[in-house]
Structures are given as structure tokens and as C-alpha cells.
């Protein structure tokens, strides 16, 4: 068994000890995870971002346009001092402005217009059968929207319709919770498989 498997197996068991109660071994493993993760991300960011995309093209290929992102990046460091904090607002403004410019039309199109058009389905399918799912989708959409419409009091028929929306919301939350439980169990099972096969060699 190689040393990396032994370390990984022991650290997994140490992390599991938290399920009993917090202890110094768990704290050590947790700190190690955070430290290693940050160290790894730092190295990847240095090599793949700063070196590959900034320093090498700028200093080796003399791509002078890269001086602009370099300057903006340096201005961001102004946040470390109260005297220069105003300078950091320039790159932040550039980021927010360009980010919003890219994101707003894209999100409006993909999350609103495309989803809205997909919610409106024909009542009859090409084979002539009644499209029950289409009715469920449109009732679910409208009743959920009604629940989040606060300009009118939720009373009478409107209140009942908004209440129907809460049932759709509960179904969504329940499904999402079920899938999340499934996901966490899958992660645990994956780790148990590692312990039983690679670390303890109980299974193949």
C-alpha cells in the first residue's frame, strides 16, 4: 500500500471522529484540508493565471495591452490601506460594470424568456393525446407566482390559488431535500468504498 493511501485513509477516519464529538485530531485534519486546498489553489492561480496569462505574454512577448489588467490588479491591492482604498474602487467598478453587462442580457434570455417559453406547452401532443403535464406546469407556474405576489392580500379565490402555489413549492423543496440527502449519502458511500477497498483491503 502506498503512503498516500495510508495518509488518506487515516485522515478520513480522523474526520469521521467529529461525528462523536469535536477533538484535536479532527481540528488538525480540518486545518490540514484548508491549508492544502489554499496552497494548491494558490499554486494553480500563480502558474495558470498570473504566469500563463499575464507575466509570460507581457514580458516575453511584449503584449503591452496586458499592462491595463496588471494596473487594475495592482489598484485592487489599495484595499489594504485606508489612504488608498478609493483606488480599489476603479477595478471593482470595471468588474461590476462589465460583469453586469455580460450577465444581465444572458440571464434574462436564458432564465426568463427561454424558461417562460418552455412553460407554455400545447394542450394536445402530436399523437393527439391530452398533454396533462402542460396543465400541471402552467398551474404550478401561475400559482407559485401568485404566492410571491404581495401587492394584493392573499384572501378569497386569489388566496386559495396562492395557497396552491405553496404545495408546488413544498414538492420542489421535498424533491431537492431528497436529492441532497442522496448526494451526501453518495459522498459517504464513495469514501467508505475507498476505506474498505483501497485502505483496509476488505473488498476488491
Amino acid at each position: 500500500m502506498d503512503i498516500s493511501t495510508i495518509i488518506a485513509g487515516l485522515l478520513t477516519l480522523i474526520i469521521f471522529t467529529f461525528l462523536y464529538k469535536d477533538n484535536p485530531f479532527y481540528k488538525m485534519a480540518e486545518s490540514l484540508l484548508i491549508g492544502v486546498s489554499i496552497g494548491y489553489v494558490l499554486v494553480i492561480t500563480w502558474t495558470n493565471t498570473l504566469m500563463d496569462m499575464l507575466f509570460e505574454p507581457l514580458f516575453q512577448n511584449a503584449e503591452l495591452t496586458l499592462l491595463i489588467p496588471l494596473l487594475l490588479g495592482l489598484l485592487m491591492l489599495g484595499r489594504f490601506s485606508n489612504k488608498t482604498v478609493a483606488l480599489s474602487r476603479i477595478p471593482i467598478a470595471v468588474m461590476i460594470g462589465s460583469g453586469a453587462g455580460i450577465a444581465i442580457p444572458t440571464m434574462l434570455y436564458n432564465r426568463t424568456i427561454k424558461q417562460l417559453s418552455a412553460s407554455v406547452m400545447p394542450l394536445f401532443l402530436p399523437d393527439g393525446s391530452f398533454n396533462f403535464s402542460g396543465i400541471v406546469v402552467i398551474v404550478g407556474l401561475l400559482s407559485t407566482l401568485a404566492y410571491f405576489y404581495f401587492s394584493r392580500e392573499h384572501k378569497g379565490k386569489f388566496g386559495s390559488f396562492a395557497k396552491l402555489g405553496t404545495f408546488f413549492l413544498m414538492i420542489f423543496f421535498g424533491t431537492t431535500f431528497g436529492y441532497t440527502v442522496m448526494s451526501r449519502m453518495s459522498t459517504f458511500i464513495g469514501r467508505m468504498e475507498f476505506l474498505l477497498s483501497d485502505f483496509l483491503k476488505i473488498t476488491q
Partner: protein
Amino acid sequence: MQILPRHYVFLGLFLLIGITMALDISVDVKVSPYTKKMHAYIDSLPEGSTLIISFDHEASSLPEIRPIALAMLRHSFQKNFKLIGVSLYPEGTLIGYRLMKNIAKEYDKTYGDDFVYLGFRPQYIAAILAMGESIESTYPQDYLGNDYNSIPMLSNIQNYDDIEAVISIADGSLTTHWIEYGGQFNIKILGAVTAAMVTTYDPYLSSNQMTAMIGGLRGAAEYEKLLGMKGGGSRGMLAQSAAHLYIIFLVILGNIFYFRSRKKGGKS
């Protein structure tokens, strides 16, 4: 009201999963329409098609992501696709490279001819949009430091027009960005995601913004069945079913005690 100390609940789960895993029994799973669609789409692509596999996940989700990623890679290599590996999360970079390299070895695939790993690029939205213009300018070098132009399988690859589909292997919302920003270039997006993200991507699947999706360990088990092979997904199905029954049992038990205490007028 606390019925029993929480560590007994965890111990029960630990033992249950440990025993069911040690039994090493594969449970037959019914393949869902989701997985069938994913398998059928990949199967329909002609041999030699070029696909991007994007490892958009962190190390913490690897136990769940790994069986899904392996199933996708095995099917792709079986079909003799040309694979371009990328990562839009720093943590997924090395994981993706190792997974691709190991599975490529199983199928005698050569680096540079059959698959290539381009590695990580920061700011995922910018990276997705930039690859739509030019993959070469986004990745002048691959993960190993080879020049883009020196890699044989990339000689005719300029942007998404030369790519059949993107498979985003994700544990979070990054597939959404592939759908929304990659979708602008009319490229097919396939999601191989953790179970927790299935409900997030369902609307995109219904609206055909995403072509196909498999989710979680269950999705991996179903995909392994379609490929006719045994893997981490199928091995974990008995443990998962047992764990779900255990949780349902705990929920029922908790509710019984809750309603009983309410009847007695006690505080919940």
C-alpha cells in the same frame, strides 16, 4: 426532544453502510429516461467526434463525482472520441487530469492524438466565452506546457464549431454557465452532476437548453449498466438503498415521538 444521542444515529449509518459495502453485492437498477437519453446521445455521435470534458468540481465531491466521471470517460473512449479536458475550478484541475490519464491507459489512448488536457482557466464566464472565439488563444499551452499548435489532435480545432458537445462534470452551478454562455455558440451541453444539483438543472433539460443529464451515484450506476460494466455506482447501490431506508425509518421514528410528546402537552 432528543430520542437518542446523535452519535448513535451516525454509528448506525456507519455500520449499515460498512456492512452493505463489505457484502459487495451489486443491485440491479432500473435505468431512468434521463440516463437513457444521455447514453443514446453519446452513442449517436460518430466515431472521432471531438468533445470537451470540463471538470467543474472540487475535491470534496470526488467520492460522488468519480463514478460519474469514469462512466462518461469510458463511454467516450469506447466510442473513439477525441477528448479535450479542461477545468474551470482550480481544485478540479489535477483530479481531471489524473482521471483522464488513467482511463485513457485502459483503452490504449495516446496523449495528444486521442486526448489532451488543457487545464484550468480563471473566471469561468470569461473562459467559456473566450473558448467560443478561440480555444488556442484561451489555452496557448496545454496543462503539461506543450504549445497548442504542437498537439496533433488540436490542429483542426479552433472553437466550439469544431466540437460536438461539452460534458460538464460538476458539483455546483458551473454547468449553468456552460448552458447560458456556451449555449450562445449553439454547442450541445451535457451535464454529469451530483444528485443535489439535479433539481437545479431539470428546468434546463425540460426547455432543451441542456441536451442530457445524469445525476449522482444512481445515475452512474444506471450508466454503468448501459455500458455493461461494474463500477463504483453499481457497487454503491445496495448501501444507498439501505441508507435511504434507514433515514426514512429515522424520520418516521422522529415523527412518532414528536406527535406523542405533543399529545402529552410537552414541548417538541
